[in-house]
Every structure is written in structure tokens, then in C-alpha cells.
């Protein structure tokens, strides 16, 4: 999966699931402060991404350190590389 596909898939999930306006979906956007997700949304975000990318996070606490959308793209990209 290309990085562009990851960005597209994550952005689509944010737009559809959390109703974030597409113009806000920038790599530097802060997931909580700029995109408006709270702690419950973050849990659901992981579930949505697990389904979209067909993986299962063994340690969901790893996501706790992710603050921006760009960091999330990178995190999923690394996961994909591990599973490649």
C-alpha cells in the first residue's frame, strides 16, 4: 500500500466517521485540538482504522503518543511495512 493510499484511507475515515471537513485534514493537524476528537473518539478511531487497514493493534497504548494526522499516517505506514 502506498503512502498516498494510506493518507486517502485515513482521511476518508476521518471525514466519514468523525465528520471532519476535508480542508482540515492536513498532516500537521492536531487530532484533538484541530480535528475535535476526544478520548472516546480516539478509541473508535483505532477500531475504524483497524477495519480499514485490516490489522489488529496488540498494544493500543502505542497510539496514545500520536498527536497529529501526519504522525498517524507514519504510524500506519510503519505497521504496513512490518506486515509486508
Amino acid at each position, binding site marked *: 500500500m502506498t503512502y498516498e493510499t494510506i493518507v486517502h484511507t485515513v482521511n476518508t475515515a476521518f471525514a466519514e466517521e468523525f465528520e471532519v471537513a476535508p480542508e482540515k485534514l492536513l498532516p500537521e493537524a492536531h487530532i484533538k485540538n484541530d480535528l475535535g476528537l476526544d478520548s*472516546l473518539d480516539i*478509541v473508535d478511531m483505532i477500531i475504524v482504522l483497524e477495519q480499514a487497514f485490516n490489522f489488529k493493534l496488540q498494544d493500543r497504548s502505542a497510539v496514545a503518543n500520536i498527536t497529529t494526522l501526519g504522525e498517524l499516517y507514519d504510524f500506519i505506514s510503519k505497521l504496513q511495512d512490518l506486515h509486508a
Partner: protein
Amino acid sequence: MVAGMEAGNCALSPIPDEQKIPGIDCHVAGRVPTPGEVRSIPRELRRTMSPMTIFAYLAAREALAQAGFSPESPLPRTGVSLGSTMGSGQELEALFSSFIPAGNLDSIRTMTFFKIMAHTAASGIAIAFGLSGRVINPVAACAAGLQGIGLAYETIAFGREDRMLCGGTEEYSPLTTATFDKIGAASHADTAEKSSLPFDRRRTGIVCSEGAGILFLEEREQALARNSTILAEIVGFSSLSSPAGVASPDAETCAACMEEALADAGADLQDVAYVNAHATATPAGDAAEGKAIEKLWGVRVPTSSLKGYLGHTLAASGALETSACIAMMRSGRLLPSRNDFQPDPSCGAIQHARPGQTLARGLVVKNSFALGGIYSSLVLAPAS
């Protein structure tokens, strides 16, 4: 709603084939079309809302506006008393549809659980409108809406809160229709217009509906102090349990409940101008309630049931029908039982309200009864 009922309209429609449960012989339901205003509810509120909470939210917003408050108005000492049959049946079905085949909860969102909890709508409304008073959630099926109002009235009368958003809400679930069918209490009619026939000799049972009824109750002196338009007053309430059984309509308890509510109001039988019956069009339930009304008033007081217009909105019915009663008290026009009415003598010798009949100034008794032997009656007085 009231304008539709005054025009003689019926809110029921055929159940689409794909929503029918095999073996269940029910063909009609009262569904709410997806309200266009749903998207106007902020996502952070809407994410925990199943249809029952959305209905309640939209009705509460109307009630607050009618009472002269915007959704942002600060409302100190204000609580919620909102009845429901259960939490979201649609979410519960979705949960088990995923959980049972998968054997795990991996794909279940956190929001699913907030929609399934029984008090999902009551707490959802309190949070949505920033209310910090007590939240009460009577879970009493078809009596829950009237209990919602009655408990709100008692909360204010006891001085615990000054204002309460109250009533009941219900979302359609095929399992509810199936339950009534299994116990022989559901209508098998295949035309919507003639499916719900309370007190009628042709009645065969309940038609399930959905919706929400919300009233805004305010302590009288405070309402007067802010020059608000008082639509009516709640002056009495009773809720009793019948030991007769979970599904055994009981005329004695029904009569006792109405008498106790009138005693709570400090009123006599002759003060009553109209009885709005629970009558859901089941053969046994309508007969028991009719006989209870006959015992108290004979043919002296007009009676009708609104289930022919709305179907049975279950937990919402007591509150939706109380709203209709208040509209009747203000217009002076009674809504008769619908559907080319053919009264059944087995429902007692009572006065069935006629088309065009006027409502005299006086008290109105509203009944709601539920499976599980729950009986509730509310007494309304015209604004004084």
C-alpha cells in the same frame, strides 16, 4: 401532530417486507421519517444518539423554544424525567449481529454502549441542553412516558427542582411488534387506515409506533414570575401495580389508579371533563379500561383513545397523548377515537367522544398502562 389528528389523518403505514420477521403476522407500523434536522445536532452529541434520543432531542428543543428558552439558555435547578421501554433496540440488534458471529467485540464502537443503556435518551437530553438537575428514567414500557411526567411533577412539587423536561421516547423495533404478536395482542390488519381500532368492536390489537413526547414543566410561581404562557397545569398523579399478572388487564386497579390521581389533585369525579384512555385496541385491555371508566363515571364523561391516529407509541404514548390533551383543553375541541368508530359494548357503557364534540372546561384524566402490571394516571387542569 394535533392538526393532523384534527384532520382525521393516520400516522401508520405498511411495514416493508424486508423489515418483517418470518412468522410474525403484523403488517403495519408508525415510523418517523428520518428528520431533516438530524444534522443540525452537533456530532459530539449525536454520536451517542440512537433514533430514540434524536426524537427526544428534537421534541425537547421544540418544548424549550415554546417555553421561551433557547438551547443555550442557562437553566438552573432543571432536570430531566424521560421514560423509555429500554435502550436502543436497533443498536442492541446491531451489537449482537456482530458479536455472535465474530465471537468478539473487536469491531464494536464505544458509542454503541451509550446508545444501549436504558437511560441513553434521558442522560443524552440532560447533556445536550446543559441541565445539571436530577435525571430520572422510568423504564416502564407503555406507562413510562406518563410516569416521566408524573415523576417530574412530583420532583417539582417536592421542591427538588424548579423545572423539568419530561415525557417519553420510543424507537421502533421489530422485536416489540413480535412480542405483542406472540402474546396475542398485536393487530393483524393489512391496511394502515383500519389497523388500530381502540374501543371498536372490530379491534384486533396493537399497532406499534415510534416517536417522542416532551413537556416542559415549571414550578407555577416561577412560570408566572417570568410571564410565560402556561398551557395547562399538572395537578395529580398516581402509579399503581396490579398483582393480577404481567399481561392481565385489571379494571379494579385501573379504576383505583384514576381515583388515586384525582385524590392527589384534591378533586372529585364530577370535576372531570374528559378521559383520554390508554386503550391500545387489544380486546382485553380496552374492555378493562372501559369498565373502569364506566364504574367511575358511567356515560357522564366523554372518553376517547388516540391510538387510531398514532398507533401505540409505547413509552412515548403517555407524553404525546398528554400533549394532545393539552391542545384539546386549549381549543375546546375533543378528538374522538378514529376510524369510522363502531363502539364495542363489552368496553362498558361509557360516553365515546363524538366528532365535533366540544370539551367543557374542567379536569382531564390521562391514562397509561403497561405490561408488567403498571398503571398510571395523570390529572391535568386548564391554566388558571
